[in-house]
C-alpha cells in the first residue's frame, strides 16, 4: 500500500509544488511594479513613498496640464494617421504576396521582415539620418509637423500588419475563390466581395494593433521627434529624467489603460473565425 500516496500521474506538472511556486512568484514579481505604479498614482503624497490616503488630484493635474494634453493629442493624431496608412499598405502588401508569384518575391518577403527584426534604435537613427539627409522641412503647421514621426511609425508597423493579414489569408478556403471566379467574378470583385469581408475581423484587429504600437512607441519617436512634435511617451521620458512624481504615475496609468483596452479588442477580433470561409 506504499503507492497510495501517488494519486496523480507524474506528468501532471501543475501539481508539482516547485513549478507552482516558481510560476506564481514570477507572476507576482511581474505585476508588482505595475500595480505599485497604478496604486501610487492615487497616493496623496508628493514624495510618493508611503501611502498617505486616496486622492485623484494628480489626475486632475494631468488633465489641466496643457503640455501633457498637447503631447497626448499629438500621440493620438500620429497613431490615427499612421494606423490608416499602415493598414492600407499592409493589406495591399499581404494580398499581393498571397495571390501573386513574381520575380524576387522571396527577397521582398525577407525585406519586409527587416524593419521588425533590426534593433529599434537602428531604426530610429536611420530615420533621423534620412530626414536630415534629404533636408525634410520642419513644418510649423500642426499635422505636418508630425510627418516625420508618422513616416517612421508606418515603416515599422506596416510589415507587421502585412504578416498578420497574410497569416489570416493562409486559412481562407481557396474553393470559395474558385467558385467566385467560376461564377464570372473578376479578380477585383473576388477581393471586394470575398477576401475583404473574410478579412474584416483581422483588419479591425490590425487597425487597433497599429494604433497601440504607434501610441506605445518610444525609441523610434525619440529620434524622429522635434521640439514641435512631442508625443506622450517622449514627454513622460523627459519627466522621468527629472524625478519621480505622482503625476507621471497618473499619466502612465491612463496610457496603460488605453493600451490594455485596445489590446483586448485586438485579441477578440483576431480569434474571431468565420467558419464558412476557413479551411
Amino acid at each position: 500500500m506504499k503507492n497510495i500516496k501517488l494519486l496523480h500521474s507524474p506528468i501532471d506538472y501543475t501539481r508539482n509544488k516547485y513549478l507552482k511556486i516558481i510560476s506564481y512568484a514570477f507572476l507576482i514579481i511581474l505585476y508588482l511594479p505595475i500595480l505599485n505604479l497604478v496604486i501610487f498614482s492615487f497616493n496623496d503624497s508628493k514624495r510618493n513613498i508611503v501611502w498617505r490616503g486616496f486622492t485623484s488630484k494628480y489626475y486632475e493635474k494631468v488633465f489641466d496640464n496643457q503640455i501633457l494634453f498637447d503631447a497626448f493629442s499629438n500621440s493620438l493624431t500620429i497613431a490615427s494617421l499612421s494606423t490608416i496608412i499602415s493598414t492600407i499598405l499592409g493589406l495591399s502588401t499581404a494580398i499581393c504576396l498571397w495571390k501573386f508569384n513574381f520575380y524576387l518575391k522571396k527577397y521582398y518577403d525577407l525585406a519586409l521582415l527587416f524593419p521588425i527584426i533590426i534593433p529599434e534604435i537602428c531604426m530610429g537613427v536611420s530615420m533621423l539620418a534620412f530626414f536630415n539627409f534629404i533636408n525634410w522641412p520642419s513644418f510649423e503647421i500642426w499635422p505636418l509637423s508630425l510627418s516625420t514621426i508618422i513616416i517612421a511609425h508606418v515603416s515599422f508597423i506596416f510589415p507587421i500588419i502585412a504578416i498578420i493579414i497574410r497569416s489570416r489569408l493562409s486559412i481562407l478556403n481557396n474553393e470559395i475563390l474558385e467558385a467566385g471566379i467560376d461564377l464570372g467574378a473578376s479578380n477585383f470583385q473576388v477581393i471586394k466581395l470575398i477576401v475583404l469581408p473574410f478579412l474584416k475581423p483581422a483588419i479591425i484587429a490590425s487597425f487597433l494593433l497599429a494604433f497601440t504600437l504607434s501610441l506605445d512607441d518610444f525609441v523610434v519617436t525619440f529620434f524622429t521627434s522635434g521640439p514641435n512634435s512631442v508625443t506622450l511617451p517622449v514627454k513622460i521620458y523627459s519627466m522621468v529624467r527629472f524625478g519621480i512624481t505622482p503625476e507621471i504615475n497618473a499619466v502612465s496609468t491612463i496610457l496603460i489603460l488605453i493600451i490594455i483596452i485596445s489590446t483586448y479588442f485586438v485579441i477578440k477580433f483576431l480569434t474571431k473565425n468565420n467558419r464558412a470561409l476557413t479551411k
Partner: protein
Amino acid sequence: MANAWGLKNKLFILLLIPGLAWLLCFFIFPIIIVFSMSFGQKVDIIGIDYNWSLHNYFRAFNGVYFFTLFKSIIISSITTFICLIVAIPVALYISFSSTRIKSILLISIMLPLWTNLLIRTYSLIAILRTKGHINSSLEYLWEASNRALNFLNLANYNIFNNNFIPLDLMYNNFAIILGLFYIYVPFMIIPIYLVLERFDRNLLEASYDLGANHFQTFFKVIMPIIIPGIISGIILVFIPCLGSFIIPDLLGGADSQMIGNIIERQFKSANDWPFGSALSFILIYMTIIVISVRYIYSKLYSKFYIRGMYEKY
C-alpha cells in the same frame, strides 16, 4: 500558391506598388544612408565627408568603446540566461494547466508586453531607488529588529548597526540586468510554451514508465524537444537587450552604459553621426549573425535530429 493570379493584371501593380515604394523610400534608403555614413568622417558640425574608410569601425573596436560593446554582449547574455532559467518552469506550468487557467496565465504573461517599455522601466525605479519600496521595507525590518533587541536588552552587543544603510539597487549593472530581465522575459516564455504545446505527451509517460525521475525526464526528453523554442526565445531576448538604451539610461549609472547609450549620444549630443552609424551597423551585423546562426541550426536540426529520432526508434 497553386492557383496564383497572372501578373499582367492591373491589380498586381496596384497592390504591389504602395508597400514596395514605401519600403524602398522609407526603410531601405535610410538604411543605405546610415550604411554609407558609417564609412564617412565628421568634418565640422554638420559636414560629413564620405571617404569610405573603415576609421569608425576601428574606433569602435578599440579602447573604451570596445569595452562597452563587450560589456553589452556580456550583460545581454547574462540576462538571456536568467530569462531562460525562469522561463522554462513557467512555460512548463502554463502548458500543463487546464484550458481556462492556461488562457488566464497566457494573457497575464502577454499583458506586460503591451504596456509601454518606458513606463515599465519607470515602475521599476519606484521600487529600486534608494528611498524606494525595497529599501524602505528593509529599513522598517531593521528598525523593528533593533527595537526588539532593545526590548530584550541585547542592544549593547550591536548585532545590527544603529543606522540602516540603504542597499544600492540602482545605477549599477545589477539594475540593468534586472530591468532587462523584467522587460524581456515574456519573449522567452512564449516560444518555449508554443513548442511545449505541440509535443507528444506520451513521450513523457514513456519516460516515467521506463523509470526515469523528474530530472532525467527533463534533461533527456523535455530539453531536446524544446530546443527550437529556446533558440527562438534567445533571439527574441538577446537582440532587443543588445540594442536597448532606455533601460541602461534610466537604471544604469554613469559607468554602466551599453552600446545603445553610446549610439544615442553620438546622434543626440556628441553629434558624431558617422561613428554612431558605424555602431548601429555593428548592432545590425550582430543581429544578422544571430539570425543566420539560427537559420543554419534549424536546417541542421530538421536534417539530423528529427530524422535521427524517428529512424533510430
